[in-house]
């Protein structure tokens, strides 16, 4: 299975579940889906995936999380996995952190909540296309 993984990270369960379903409904079995409620959990999952030899394709992440904030997390990810499509999905984010991300990170997009399904899909698609 060379299916790549879509990773959703949000501390709000209601967002996380509905987001994952949304993406799964669209992308179906094309991808594998993982969810995490915090950056720390996400790191664990990423480690597991590495162990299992699975790659990540897309990370959709919230900014306001307990512990490490979304922007920091995505920066980290970007360092290690520059090609992963990174979407910061958030109700608020500090402007300077966003700017930093935009500057430094590849494949990074900011999507405010509430979001349109179409917008999200498009961003992801665009991102994936870029990778090719």
């Amino acid at each position, binding site marked *: 299975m060379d299916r790549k993984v879509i990773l959703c990270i949000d*501390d709000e369960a209601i*967002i996380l579940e*509905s987001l994952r*379903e949304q993406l799964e409904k669209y992308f179906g079995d094309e991808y594998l889906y993982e969810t995490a*409620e915090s950056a720390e959990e996400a790191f*664990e999952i990423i480690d597991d995936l590495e162990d299992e030899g699975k790659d990540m394709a897309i990370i959709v992440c919230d900014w306001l999380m*307990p512990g490490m904030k979304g922007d920091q997390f995505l920066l980290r990810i970007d360092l290690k996995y520059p090609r992963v499509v990174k979407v910061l999905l958030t109700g608020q984010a500090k402007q300077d952190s966003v700017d930093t991300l935009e500057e430094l990170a590849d494949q990074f997009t900011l999507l405010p909540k509430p979001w349109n399904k179409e917008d999200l899909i498009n961003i992801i698609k665009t991102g994936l296309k870029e990778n090719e």
Partner: protein
Amino acid sequence: MRFRIPSIKSFSGNIILTVFIALALFSYGVFLLTKQVKTNLTEQYTKCLVVKTSWIQSTIFKKLESAILVSDIPGENNNSHLSNAIGLCHFEISDNQIQITKDDTHFHSSPEKLKVINYFLNNTPIINNRVYYSLKEFEHFYYFVAFKNSKDSADKITGTMAISQASVDSVLLYLIDQNLSIIQSAIVIPDTILFSSGSSTCLENEISCASLSNKTQHFFNCKDKRKLFWVRASLANEIQLILVFKSIRIYSNPILYLISSFILLLLGIVLFPVIERRKYQHQIGEINEVIEHISQKEFNNLLSEEYPGKLGTLTRSLNKMSSQLKEMYHDLEIRVIRRTSEISMRNAELRKKQREILQQNQELKSAYEALKESQEKYEQLIEHLEDEYFFYSIAHSGILLFVSPSVKKILGYEVKEYRNIHDQIYTDNPMNKNALECEENLKLGIAQPKFFKEVYDNKRDEKFLEVSEVPIFNDDGQLVSIEGLAHDITERQKAEELIKEQEEKYRMLFTHASDFIFLYKINRENNKVGNFIEANRYTLNKLGYTLEELREMNPLNLLSNEMDSEEENQVNEMAINDSKFERIWESKDGQPINVEISAHALTIKDKEVAIAVARDITARKKAEEEIRFVNEELVNQKENLESLVDNLTETQEQLVQSEKMAALGQLIAGIAHEINTPLGAIKASIGNMLDSLNTALNELPDLFQKQSIEDLSLFNIIFENAQQSSKVELSSREKRQKRRELSSVFNEQQIPDAELVADALVYLEIYDASNDLILNLKKTDALKVVRSARNFISIKKNTNTINLAVEKATKVVFALKKYAHRDAMGEKVSTDITDSIETVLTLYQNQLKQGIEIVRNYGKLPLIQCYQDEISQVWTNLIQNAIQAMNLEGILTITTKQKGDTIEVSFKDNGPGVEPDIRDKIFEPFYTTKKQGEGSGLGLDIVKKIIEKHNGAIELESKMGEGANFIIILPLGIEQK
């Protein structure tokens, strides 16, 4: 008159003799008494017999005459002791001289003692090797002497002598046997006994003088020939006691003498007069009779001539005398009568004369009194004049002929003195020039009027004299003298000068005063003010009028304003009476002058005038105006300030409100996010639901058609599980774990697409692979089935999500609503404190989520009356501050508890803490530790004010580096207690 019985005095011869004898006897008796001769031998004797041999008691002993006894040496070898001891001494005699060799220092030595010792030494016989006692007299004292001497080879006699002063009661005792050998001897001094020891030879010389026998009394002579007697008494043991006494002679008994003297006295005083009296009684009786007759003036009852002897002669002569007397008496009577009538005539004449004289007396008296009165008057006048006037007469040559003595009173000079100096006592007063001129003229005979002189008196004081001098001419027309009368008018002069001085003063005052002073007429009848009479210079200057002009005006003309009649009356009233008032005058050139007038009415020489003093108060008025103006301005300023203060207060309130809004504003972003999040979830969920439904609808025919039993049973399991909706929501981690487990199980069971199936089952909330399940899964197209089921379940789940999201959003909105809700009425509401804190926390959820952990220690709190809105603001500010202090990362511990009748709410952060020196400052308005623009600084001030409004308190505990703990204490309110 009677003859009295002769008194004692008449027998004076006999009586005196008797008394004398009596006294003599008496005194002798006393003398003997003092010699203490005692009586009653027998008594003594009997007492002495009581004495025993063993020791001797002293009773009353007689004084001893000397007796010599021979015995052994006393003193050293027995227990005798000498009281009253004079001395115990050793002596030696050589060349007939006795010398004391050793004087025992036991005894006190004194010159007297030595004298005594020497005497005895020299007067005591030397009897070798004998000791004897002696009772000797020396200088009126008796001494016991114990003496022993011995002769040695060299013819030197040495000896020992003990001398003791004998008291009057001491006695020698001897104990003798039948053979007159003395067994023992003793000298008895009261309380003391001197013993000799043992055997001795018999009494020599003296005792052998007498022959002892058994008689109880014996007399024997001693050396001095006075009688002693001794008594011998027999006692037991055949030892006989001899007591030697001094004898008593009966005629030495003092009592005898005393008694006899008394008797004699008695005889003399009583007996003799009585005897004598008897003798004369008869004779005296007769005399008394005679006297009685005479005393009754009964000359007719002539005395009897029977009286014998001298008495008869007496009576005869008395009789003769009485008849003679009778005759004489008659003669006298006649004469007296005659005389009396003469005298009475004379008396009448004399009385008449006396009356006349009395009358004359009266007249004289009244005349005298009148004279006296006028004399007094004259004297007074002269005195008075003398005090003031003296007159004199000066000759043509200038010599003073005469001057009245009153010159002394006035000028102090004696008459003589004045004569000499009368023209030399002028002072330097220029007036004297005129005086001298006048005098010159007078000398020429020209009469002069009165003139004045000033002279020195004797004390060199100036005296002012008014002099009136007149030239006197003789018949030929020549000037004889000048008669002068000088009147001392010094006092008057002085008074005049004083008045002048005062006048001058007032004039000065009037002229030079820098106030208006003026006089004006007043008319009391019609209450009107008259014209000016006088005005001082100041008035004239200030007003610009001349005095003549003023005299044509009255003070009312000066007033600057017109007055109606009533006012005029008033002013007139004031100006006429004593008053003080203010007016505005106009000077001649129209200048207004404010004046304060003080007027006073008086009468000068029957004319009614008023004097007024007015002060220019223009300046004062001006000053008053200015002050008034300044005052008004101040009042204005005060009003301005007050309104300013009001403004400020309003502004402050606005600031508070804006603070609140600012706080709120800060939250908005967070709140928006808090709402957006649910919205996002809702949106996604709805999308999901739609998709699921679509898919489910599409698959429905398929579903209806080919469903195997196994499929159905699988469905059953799934849907059964789905019904149990009360399952605990697992975390994504846990879900993943479960998925892995299921996946590995399914892989084992060789179920295709194990992971996907596991994934789907986890979605369907089936976490455990029961055998039943596994069986079913094996039998069916597991993935397809579970995925189909998923569509339906998806709807449920998404619906759930939407519900949750809505709930969340609602909560936030509600919180916001609650927060922004204004207590329009401003009333206290029953509030749940915990709830209000939670509300604020909800609003801050977003910020807190960024890294702040909330630890809640909520105690059970009752409802409390408070301004809900404002209390929320308190929590808001404190939570805000805590968040900012911790910089969005840390632990905020909120504790609530009920303490008695208060509620305690504390917010503890673990930020850097609050520095000690700003702990009070931070509650001050506009104090902030943030950079400019980042905070109004009102937060804690508002909190404090709100808490105070609730009668609560706020405390701050902080340890640097550990954080700050704000503690709010709110009282429950009376209803809650």
